[in-house]
């Protein structure tokens, strides 16, 4: 387990990056939508965006609950 201060910094760093990603998505929504709906091999655009957001925003949300003290207990699947 990292120190509380490190956890707050991690949450803040991922939070800011996540915010930036969303800002870029909506600042350039016309251009991004235009490319992503061309279809065919450009399917990679929405899939890539979804993966990038899941990594950054997923890390932010995990750290967010951790900083608030809401954490899980490892219980090994209960068998």
């Amino acid at each position, binding site marked *: 387990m990292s120190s509380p201060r490190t956890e707050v910094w991690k949450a803040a760093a991922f939070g800011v990056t996540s915010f930036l990603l969303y800002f870029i998505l909506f600042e350039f929504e016309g251009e991004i939508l235009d490319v992503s709906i061309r279809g065919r091999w450009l*399917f990679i655009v929405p899939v890539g965006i*979804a993966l990038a957001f899941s990594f950054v925003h997923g890390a932010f949300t995990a750290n967010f609950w951790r900083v608030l003290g809401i954490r899980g207990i490892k219980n090994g699947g209960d068998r």
Partner: protein
Amino acid sequence: MEDLAVSFIEIGLSEAAFLLVVGFVGGLVSGFIGSGGAFVLTPAMMSLGVPGIVAVASNICHKFPKALVGAIKRARYGQVDLKLGLVMGVSAEAGVLYGAHIQESIKRSFGDAGSNLYVSAAFILVLGIVGGYVLRDAWRIYRSGRMDAIEKAGRLARRVQSVRIPGTMVYFKSLDAKISVLFTIPLGFATGMLAATIAVGGFIGVPGLIYVLGAPAVMASATELVIAFVMGLGGTIKFAWSGLVDIRLAMIILAGSLFGVQLGAIGTTYVKPFTIKVVMGVIMVVILLSRAIIVPVYMAQLGILQPLDETVAAVLSKASFVVMVIALVVGASIILYALWHGRRAHLAQHEMLEEPVATD
């Protein structure tokens, strides 16, 4: 952007806030029972003016990253059987393609009303039989007072595990047994078909993993997230190939749902396995009611029943949507209560023992 305005809506603050909240609640349910949070999102997007096909495509595009994050989180708790998830994911993908093909054929032959009736009939049949069984099992466990007992494979699962077909036997850690991989194929296929029909394959996938294969509820719901990821990725590629995904809508929903999926996954570590069955059973049975309300409208549209008054049809449609939202809210409330209750008990126990509180 002019040409896009026909198919892709303007997203204002109120639309974004609405989708964030629905996304959060849906994510919470998915993180906890492995799926089941997405069925409200397609109608919710359509209520904002998003065309049906774009709503379906955008919904599935938010599902696969959500399932990925949920699966990773739950794998950290040791709850995911990756091998079983991937094996079933492949046959589920085939089921999705076949289910979509059936949907298209019905729509071609009977139009929108026929397609809607087919979806509602699938809802009622599957949710009635499987949901009723899950809820009855949860009730039986509750009545027996053995909520803390270690889960054991049922009679059907023991029979499945006892079948030996040379060359097809594979060990799965969630079952702690070798089973013939042939049993996973129809189960995965049915999961995919249901996902293509009602958007929630987990209503067959999770009970199937528990009652047919013999996985514990916690591992079944976690492994379903792997299956959902495989199906969601395949579905997204299919729709994105045709240029139907509105990535803005998908990412707004994802913003809310990732908060929810993390919390739902955390919740599974505090509750008794029987709680997963309760949440799943309750949601399934309430949705069943929601679909039963709308069936007369589709039957009237197809001429099977006398035409309904327009006001009556509108009231039934609205009531059906409201009951669907209630299903999700009731499920989410049980999860939040169980998390809060379980966490309080855990903290009280650790205060007595003076041990570190959490390991995540």
